[in-house]
């Protein structure tokens, strides 16, 4: 049976690519902000929009935060992309040193990358965490990143599978935590490797 995915439509930006990429790997995709549709789909994809503040504010306005929490509580899959990963953490220092709060589902803070060249823009290798399902068949691949902020890898794993990459320091590139997954990079812009990762997710729905 074809898996249904809702791409949450809660702000401006390029979401067309992720819709097409999901269709390309066999999902039936709907771009909508309708909470009932988003709750009922096999998978919910939360794209990143603009910066941290715009993303969390847009999500809250679209009731995206309660939607994500409700889905996770009943084991329904959610995949966040780029800032869609960042908002799942405690908060971000992008707009204030005191850190603007995120959803706080995962412990950790989004911080500016300590590198000579920022934004980190381009293809970097990702080291998959042990037992990763998202990265099945993708052990030695580069993915496309575009971001200035990230969650530093503190080595803490709890129940999560954490995959990492490096720019200035080692940071969280992807997380798998039961029904909730997220990537800092853009799988929909990462060529064949990205399509394979999306396919791995869609197949799990």
């Amino acid at each position: 049976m074809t898996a249904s995915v809702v791409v949450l439509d809660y702000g401006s930006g390029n979401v067309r690519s992720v819709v097409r990429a999901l269709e390309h790997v066999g999902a039936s995709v709907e771009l909508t902000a309708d909470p009932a549709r988003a709750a009922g789909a096999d998978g919910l994809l939360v794209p990143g929009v603009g910066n941290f503040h715009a993303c969390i504010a847009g999500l809250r306005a679209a009731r995206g935060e309660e939607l994500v929490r409700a889905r996770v509580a009943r084991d329904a899959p959610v995949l966040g992309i780029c800032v869609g990963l960042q908002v799942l953490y405690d908060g971000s220092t992008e707009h204030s040193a005191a850190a603007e709060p995120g959803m706080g589902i995962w412990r950790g803070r989004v911080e500016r990358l300590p590198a000579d060249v920022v934004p980190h823009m381009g293809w970097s290798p990702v080291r998959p965490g042990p037992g990763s399902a998202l990265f099945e068949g993708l052990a030695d691949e580069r993915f496309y990143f575009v971001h200035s902020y990230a969650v530093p890898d503190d080595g803490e794993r709890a129940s999560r599978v954490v995959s990492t990459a490096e720019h200035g320091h080692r940071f969280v590139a992807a997380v798998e935590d039961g029904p909730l997954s997220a990537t800092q990079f853009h799988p929909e812009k990462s060529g064949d490797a990205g399509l394979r990762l999306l396919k791995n997710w869609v197949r799990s729905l």
Partner: protein
Amino acid sequence: MSVAVRVIPCLDVDDGRVVKGVNFADLRDAGDPVELARRYGEDGADELTFLDVTASSSDRSTTYDVVRRTAEEVFIPLTVGGGVRTVEDVDRLLRVGADKVGVNTAAIARPELIAEVADRFGAQVLVLSADVRRRRDDTGAVTGGFEVTTHGGRRGTGIDAVQWCARAADLGAGEILLNSMDADGTKAGFDVELIRAVRGEVQVPVIASGGAGSPAHFAPAVQAGADAVLAASIFHFGEVGIGEVKDALERAGHPVRRGRAAAQTPRLAEDSDATEASSPRNST
């Protein structure tokens, strides 16, 4: 284990068609930007740039259609530049599937445009495209320093290019596309002094453009500080394949991305041996 040097082919698009002869042997329609984009993606391009050279803004709908169809088929980043003047232009391009938008002349006329775009869509969306030439006196002798130009390098602005790039980055440009108008069309190599000068003043990524004539030309641009390299004619005429450029970069010690597709579809190796061009591409 660091970020790969991006190799970026650039296509000039006029009224929905690729201009300045592209010459691959096996294309059904060499003027179709979508088919070329797909081809470059298969060949290992890390990103694509469309430069919209459509003269009349009333014909822009064809550009939006080309961007839409490309983004639906090619799953690598797509930058679109040319004639972008307002926040609404940027919004429209993003909505049809562009990942980044290049801004050039409009930002010179009104630098606040950079901040407006960055505030609304994020800094990563805005590529400041700067057409730069060396300063010369009345006799044409180089006098030192670099100047921003408009009208394809024909008209000087008097603005110092290095300072302009630094200011654009401060205003929120996520990346600088640095076009050397002196090197463009010469096929004699990138202007490494210009790259070095800008690299020294900005923290955002720098894309080097103008002057690429052989695979050996790319590594010096990266050594001078470029994070990405952009070229048009040498790729379009099949003189040089993207894989060859990556080979040369790798031999010089720079990290590159090797696609799985390239390893799994050996036919690409034969295809890259395309027909030779009869005439070089004119300067943009």
